[in-house]
């Protein structure tokens, strides 16, 4: 039962500090689940990210569902998903009911002007360490860079690259082995 509450609490923190959507939660997930709790390895973390990208809906929920199941089965799914959603739900309701127009508050705007560039840095740091661990350094780093540019600026769907990678991986590694 300890794991149940730990999972809830970890994903509650992830839900609270995911600012700016999608991958902004990634550094928090990595710090909490890989580095601190050591529930999953860095290698597995990358595999799981591929899976949650291929599933529809909010990525934070997909991640909570997958990791919840992986760490503590069905109860883990409940704890992690509920934890990830609850902070959003409570904060948004408070704003909608009590603090309409908070997005125009000067202190609020000032805080977020500080947070936004920091969040970008927080997303970039794991890119470097993950690339080292996954042996995608040096000239091979051009692969992820090419993918990143096509997704960010040519608006190619991430799903396209995920499917392409599954096909290419089987053709390449199937033929040449390890």
């Amino acid at each position, binding site marked *: 039962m300890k794991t149940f509450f730990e999972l809830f609490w970890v994903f509650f923190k992830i839900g*609270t*500090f*995911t600012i*700016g*959507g*999608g*991958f902004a*939660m*990634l*550094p*928090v997930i990595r710090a909490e689940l890989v580095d601190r709790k050591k529930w999953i390895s860095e290698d597995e973390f990358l*595999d799981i*990210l*591929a*899976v949650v*990208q291929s*599933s*529809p*809906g*909010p*990525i*934070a929920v997909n991640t909570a*569902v*997958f990791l919840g199941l992986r760490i503590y089965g069905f109860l883990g799914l409940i704890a992690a998903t509920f934890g990830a*959603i609850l902070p*959003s*739900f409570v*904060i*948004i*309701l408070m*704003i*909608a009911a009590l603090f309409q127009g908070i*997005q125009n508050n000067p202190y609020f*705007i*000032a*805080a*977020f*002007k*500080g*947070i936004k*560039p*920091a*969040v*970008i840095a*927080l997303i*970039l*740091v794991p890119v470097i360490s*993950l690339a080292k661990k*996954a042996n*995608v350094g040096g000239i091979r780093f051009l692969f*992820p860079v090419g993918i*990143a*540019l096509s*997704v960010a600026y040519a608006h190619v*769907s*991430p*799903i396209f*690259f995920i499917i392409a990678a599954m096909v290419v*991986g089987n053709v390449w*590694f199937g033929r040449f082995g390890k």
Partner: protein
Amino acid sequence: MIFFELFWTFFKIGLFSFGGGYAMLALIQNEVVRIHQWVTNSQFADIVAVSQVTPGPIAINAPTYIGYQSTGTITGSFWATFGVTLPSVLVTTILFVFLNRFKDSPYIKNAFKALKPTVIGLILSAALVLMTPDNFSGWQSFVFFAAAFAACYKFNVSPITLVIVSGAAGILVYG
């Protein structure tokens, strides 16, 4: 029955949006502004602004807000959020069971070998998308960026601490 309609509308949105929050916003706008007219266009713009600058995934924030705005009740928020979450839970669970069953298959292993560099690219693209003039206005924002990068990369400061500190520093610098 508005609650069921909220649930069903967000269930469809959840099921057909891939790539998280930003990808979902266009679908939400089409359904809630154009088809159902639960909120006006300018209300929708406010909802997006609030969802982006409050903690939590945009894909959860926006449905919660729209559920409240359209019904004036927490029950509306509940059904909209439940609707957008349910397809995620179902599809991800199916993927989990499938992968657990076939994880030793050479096809799955080969796929994951190629998926690693791909996912690193997708994370990098998330950072690129956020590098807008809006988020980097003035030299101070580059200092924020560099300081956060160094603190995280060199000194292993936790992301949660960095978010809190950079928010406080933002108030001091810009407030």
